């Protein structure tokens, strides 16, 4: 609701520009915002999942269950459930109402990536080590596992001749492994990316691959879908990022996939340094993409309209892994590979001085003041007050949320996590700190406050002595 008063200049800034602060609680291996953007989930190398409160920068929850590094975390749409996957061959579905493990699903190999269905937290897809992807349904006590194919879809009309010619290639392709599985925004289709550079679209209801497109010849290691569901980004081992416009799939496309248009819109690479990209993400609207770089400390931001580089974010002194774009604000988080610290970039909004003193105007140059005709006339105050009170006849609605132009619409009813005040204390607690200009000031003040407290207690003691 602060939009109506915010500075239009700061609102027009839609990508982060300055390093804001960092969070540290253990060694973070992956970071993902929830859909509302008020919580940040961080999977750690020791298998713990930690939730940070984005607004305060403080710890919101600590959840232990994995024994090895967490590879991915995925939020349910309402933010109540969280799915984590780990190298310990397990996926855990957490219920954040009480932080309990709602379900533990074991696999035979390490889980690289697991994502919840956008509308049903009892369905998820997992990409696991040296295996084909799985679709899992845990709505009943018995877990229903369905193995999906990593093989690209082939038009069935090819003649025998062609089939023979391609058999060798097919054999090679049979070795293709899926590293990433994403749901599209409707949850009806899965987008999987393989080590052979193929992107397969799988119809969730029938578990069949309906369409494939080969974007590259090297392995695709990261795939992300924008919050709008319209843009996809793929990061592959050939040092190139590719964005693809996600086609709106219909039932007819399932019957006849030839109409599906799935083409690379833009490619992004660093031609000079030939940088590898560690990880990437798209802004919620798909207007910008960001990527962390291999053997480098920066996060690159491109705009996707023309494909031009707009910003290189600096700050940390270590290589960055996971990056994630905030769902509503111009804010990016990235996890450091070396220390596991979480770095946050945001925008810098200068204070508008006119907000502090509304009767002052900010002028470009001197203006000659012209006195109004009645400016110093005598006015009867009582009469003026009465006239003003009489003018106050407007109807006011203190409850309704609908009409106003400031975007006062009733927010969709959503689940909010209970605020825990007794997060388990541990020795690592001292590690939680916000490093940034504002935090430094507050810490200084805290120190001062602490001293005051000490003095106070001293005074009390003296009293007790008396």
């Amino acid at each position, binding site marked *: 609701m602060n939009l109506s008063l915010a500075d239009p200049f700061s609102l027009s800034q839609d990508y982060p520009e300055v390093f804001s602060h960092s969070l540290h609680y253990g060694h973070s291996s992956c970071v993902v915002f929830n859909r509302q953007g008020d919580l940040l989930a961080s999977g750690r190398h020791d298998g713990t999942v930690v939730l940070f409160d984005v607004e305060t920068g403080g*710890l919101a929850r600590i959840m232990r269950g994995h024994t090895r590094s967490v590879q991915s975390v995925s939020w349910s749409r309402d933010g109540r459930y969280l799915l984590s996957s780990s190298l310990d061959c397990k996926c855990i579905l957490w219920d954040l109402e009480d932080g309990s493990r709602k379900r533990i699903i074991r696999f035979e190999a390490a889980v690289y990536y697991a994502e919840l269905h956008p509308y049903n937290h009892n369905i998820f897809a997992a990409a696991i080590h040296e295996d084909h992807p799985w679709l899992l349904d845990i709505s009943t006590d018995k877990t229903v596992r369905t193995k999906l194919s990593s093989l690209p879809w082939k038009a069935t009309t090819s003649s025998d001749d062609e089939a023979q010619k391609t058999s060798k290639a097919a054999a090679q392709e049979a070795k293709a492994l899926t590293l990433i599985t994403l749901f599209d925004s409707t949850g009806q289709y899965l987008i999987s990316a393989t080590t052979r550079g193929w992107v397969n679209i799988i119809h969730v209801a029938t578990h069949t691959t309906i369409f494939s497109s080969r974007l590259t010849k090297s392995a695709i290691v990261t795939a992300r879908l924008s919050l709008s569901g319209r843009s996809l980004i793929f990061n592959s081992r050939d040092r190139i990022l590719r964005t693809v416009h996600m086609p709106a799939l219909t039932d007819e496309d399932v019957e006849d996939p030839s109409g599906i248009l799935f083409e690379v819109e833009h490619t992004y690479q660093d031609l000079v340094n030939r940088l590898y990209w560690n990880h990437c993400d798209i802004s919620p609207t798909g207007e910008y993409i960001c990527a962390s770089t291999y053997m480098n400390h920066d996060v690159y931001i491109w705009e996707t309209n023309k494909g031009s580089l707009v910003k290189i974010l600096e700050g940390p002194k270590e290589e960055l892994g996971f990056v994630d774009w905030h769902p509503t604000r111009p804010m990016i988080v990235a996890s450091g590979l070396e220390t596991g610290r979480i770095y946050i970039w945001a925008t810098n909004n200068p204070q508008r001085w006119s907000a502090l003193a509304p009767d002052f105007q900010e002028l470009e140059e001197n203006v000659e003041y012209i006195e109004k005709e009645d400016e110093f006339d005598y006015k009867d105050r009582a009469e003026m007050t009465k006239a003003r009170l009489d003018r106050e006849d407007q109807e006011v609605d*203190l409850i309704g949320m609908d009409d106003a132009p400031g975007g006062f619409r009733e927010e969709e009813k959503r689940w909010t996590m209970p605020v825990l005040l007794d997060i388990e204390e541990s020795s690592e607690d001292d590690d939680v700190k916000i490093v940034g200009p504002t935090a430094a*000031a507050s810490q200084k003040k805290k120190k001062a406050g602490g001293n005051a407290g000490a003095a106070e207690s001293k005074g009390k003691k003296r009293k007790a002595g008396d």
Partner: protein
Amino acid sequence: MDSLDTNGRLSPPFKRQRTVSPSPPPNGISRFGNSASSEPASGPTSPPIQSLSNSLSPRPNSGPNYRLKHTLTGHKGGVSSVKFSPDGKWIASASADKTLRVWDAKTGELEQIFEAHTAGISDVAWSPDSKTLATGSDDKTIRLWELKSGRMIRILKGHHNYVYCVNFNPQGNMIVSGSYDEAVRVWDIRSGNCQKTLPAHQDPVAAVDFIRDGTMIVSCSHDKLIRIWDTNTGQCLKTLVEEELPQVSCVRFSPNGKYILASTLDSSIRLWDYLRDGGKVLKTYLGHVNVKYSIFSAFSRDGRYIFSGSEDKAIYVWDVQTKEVLQILRDHEDVVLGVSAHPTENLLVTCGLDGTVKIWADEQ
């Protein structure tokens, strides 16, 4: 010694006392010819019998008809603030006697006494889940209390002077507080750390409130300003001033967040449209007496009435639209400081310098 003197809210030590003579209560308190036109009359009902609590009832057909239900005694000093819990089950009252008491909202029975503050308490706030309470005190601290266990769970130190007002954000992860040290502070309640210090005002901060989605904070002060802050950036978004605006003693957002209700020490309560360029006063509510104390105001849950305490020992009920005084509730024996409306029922709770808490029910 009068314990009230130690309490910031009850007797501000260095505030300029304004002797604005309060405009006399309109003679036509019981004129509801106008109000009846805007609300459907529910047929001719017999005028209600004058209640035990000699409350001056205007006998409206559809207006409020609050009657005293319970008087809760026990506080050994003036009660500065009283609040219904968001779930409607409890009443919390904070007093100059350094205690916080929680009462059952239905029966009025004392449920719990929280003691730890070393000076009088000026304000109390409920967390949105009704499980935690926050109190701001003249001992310069804010303390968090757990209702279930009765324990004190956090002590927030940082203010350099009396803590005057305190409020939770709707998400329940932050607290905002205002103090005699002229600053507004935002606290992370999980860690108990002060997250932001807003150099807000040049005089004691009398009230702070979060908007319904928590993105903005409004604060007011004896320096006659009302300021609106962005919670996230900590920057001032807007300042509301009016020519010759007197000291502002209470401020709050309307339930939908479109307006701000501000009480000032010239015995008036103004409803601001703060979105309008420069801010505009839409309504002025007059009739009560408020020249010295920070007296709370409240909206009824249906947004039709405004309640406020008064220094003439009464509680005033206004019609939001017509600005008419619909009812004046009398039973307190001293200045009425706090009012709070029940979130789901037509109940009102009030407190005052006489050390009592009173529950009123609308018997329509």
